[in-house]
């Protein structure tokens, strides 16, 4: 093995893959059979980069040669950068050796498009197949579905991979046309639709025949880039909601655009990464998937953007003061989940614990409820509660004044400069 050459390739192809934010290694239930190597059951983040993102998978491109010229992408055809390509064996060796040392949960393999979609997809599938069949590797494999790849290849990919993903790149078709003229959304949706049906069908088969092979057990995900095109949060979340509902996606990732290229269609190079907006979008995404919120409740025509200074649940609550206060000792779980400062786990704890006796502030605090927010919206077994008739705006001001936002510090630094 030529260590220097591999190092160089790894640097180029890991660097090119890092803007894909998907990092999940959970959701699969692949077991280690016949004393092979690895399993994929619960997600583990093995390390964290200095920007605080998790490193769970060996995330690389097979190659950064690409026939497309998408404005937002570092690997675009017209960009003058170093190009490299791994061989199938090199990817297999890296994966196995990193995995054996407990560096990673598995492989996330993507690629620039060389020649055509099928040619590229065939290479990706070949690597997954080799890992599974020749090396008895049961770790997590996430493959990119190349837009336009044939159904036969997608089917084979599903047999070896745990998760597959197609990146929608831009939240709307118009945004995509602007920045990626060579791509069209129909090509991306086609493999997604095929996989959705295949997953449903295979899951049915699995129920009937225990021995039926597992097929993409961790499902599909996608990614949209935020802040490169002018879509508002309402458009982004509606689009996400559409794909969750119609394609049974496990995750939609929101990737704040990192300016890497100068192009008149894109934000300027010195624009900062929209990290707060990205964070709020994820919070809204969680509200839709786990907290029973409808997308219309979070964003609508009157509220096309998420509040940047408070989280979307608090923002919903202060717009809907008529729903509060909630009685912790009586309300349904669904309503308790809607209280700002109460998360999934504490909501479940509350519902379990109140069977034994009414709960008071102290107990709520011990269960992990963020009282600084929740106290304005609940009553519990105590004579102390918020008696003032506060408006939503008052509450927002009180909470902002007493809390230390993880973003507030940055704002202050910026203000001091002037």
């Amino acid at each position, binding site marked *: 093995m030529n260590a220097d050459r591999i190092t160089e390739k790894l640097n180029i192809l890991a660097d090119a893959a890092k803007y894909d934010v998907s990092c999940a290694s959970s959701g699969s239930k692949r*077991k280690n059979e016949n004393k092979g190597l690895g399993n994929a059951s619960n997600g583990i983040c093995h390390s964290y980069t200095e920007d605080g993102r998790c490193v769970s998978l060996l995330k690389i491109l097979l190659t950064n040669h690409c026939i497309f010229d998408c404005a937002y992408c570092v690997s675009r055809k017209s960009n003058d950068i170093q190009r490299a390509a791994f061989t199938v064996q090199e990817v297999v060796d890296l994966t196995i050796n990193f995995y054996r040392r407990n560096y990673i949960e598995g492989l996330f393999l993507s690629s620039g498009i060389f020649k055509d979609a099928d040619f590229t997809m065939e290479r990706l599938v070949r690597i997954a197949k080799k890992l599974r069949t020749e090396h008895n590797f049961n770790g997590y494999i996430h493959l990119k579905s190349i837009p336009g790849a044939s159904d036969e290849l997608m089917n084979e990919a599903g047999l070896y991979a745990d998760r597959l993903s197609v990146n929608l790149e831009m939240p709307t078709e118009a945004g995509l046309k602007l920045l990626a003229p060579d791509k069209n959304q129909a090509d991306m949706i086609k493999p997604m639709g095929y996989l959705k049906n295949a997953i449903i069908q295979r899951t049915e088969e699995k129920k009937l025949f225990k021995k039926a092979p597992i097929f993409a057990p961790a499902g599909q995900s996608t990614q949209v880039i935020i802040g490169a095109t002018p879509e508002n949060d309402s458009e982004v979340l509606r689009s996400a909601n559409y794909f969750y509902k119609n394609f049974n996606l496990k995750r939609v990732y929101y990737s704040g655009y990192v300016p890497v290229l100068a192009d008149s269609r894109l934000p300027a190079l010195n624009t900062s990464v929209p990290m707060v907006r990205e964070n709020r979008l994820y919070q809204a995404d969680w509200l839709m998937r786990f907290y029973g919120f409808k997308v219309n409740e979070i964003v609508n025509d009157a509220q096309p953007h998420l509040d940047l200074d408070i989280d979307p649940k608090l923002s919903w609550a202060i717009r809907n003061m008529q729903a509060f206060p909630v009685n912790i000792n009586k309300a349904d779980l669904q309503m308790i989940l809607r209280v700002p400062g109460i998360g999934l786990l504490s909501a479940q704890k509350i519902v379990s614990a109140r069977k034994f006796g009414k709960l008071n502030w102290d107990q709520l605090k011990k*269960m992990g409820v963020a009282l600084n927010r929740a106290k304005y919206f609940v009553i519990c077994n105590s004579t102390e509660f918020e008696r003032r008739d506060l408006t939503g705006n008052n509450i927002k001001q009180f909470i902002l004044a007493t809390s230390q936002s993880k973003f507030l510090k940055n704002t202050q630094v910026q203000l001091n400069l002037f």
Partner: protein
Amino acid sequence: MTTLIYDGTFEGLLTSVFEVYDRRLDRVNLQKTGLNSNALFEDKLQVITDYVRANRVLKGLKQKVSSMGIQRLYAAHLAEMDGEENSLLGYIRYAFDAGQNIEEDYGNKFVMRVSEMVRMVRREKHRMEAFVRFQKLKDETYYAAVEPDFNVLPLLIRHFKSRYADQKWIIYDIKRKYGIYYDLHDTQYISLDFASVNKPGDVIAAFTEDEGIYQHLWKNYFSSVNIPSRKNTKLHVRHIPKRYWKHLTEKI
């Protein structure tokens, strides 16, 4: 107030529960041997760990608490936090004395405290599943040194055994001076002589030739995936507290 002194083992804890009921003690303070309390006017009782009695308590406890609950108690016990055995004892007594299953009574201070301890221990277990960094030795054994906050090695066996079924491995707890060794068939507890080996660089001579190459590749990979314009040191350190860095290949 009676002070019960036990040996710090789970069986010792269960034996102490037996003593509490056998002697009809009411207010008790449970503590590990070696911690001297100097209160003058209190009864002291040395609990001698007795497996038969411990098993009787365990059997009784199983009538009151689910098997998950027993596992949780064991996990909380592994936190080995001084003074917290009283929370465990309180939990067990509450479970025995209540007419119903109390595992979800989070309003109760013992149940809540045990739940907190379980969360702390499980978080540490999960961290170890993530932060163990194996290094391949010449005899094909993969070796990793760790220094977990709590005594979580017993909880790690199942995970590593099912994951790395086809390679020999050792995970060694330097702080507590014992490790687990998997020989392709079974795991056993071991203790090694070289207590001084606490940095991955120390036993270089024993490594295979490609070990250095893969460590180098991993470090390169780690720095390549970083996006400097998103730098967030606070978040980084929250995810990987500095005390773990010395055993992480990519942070050395």
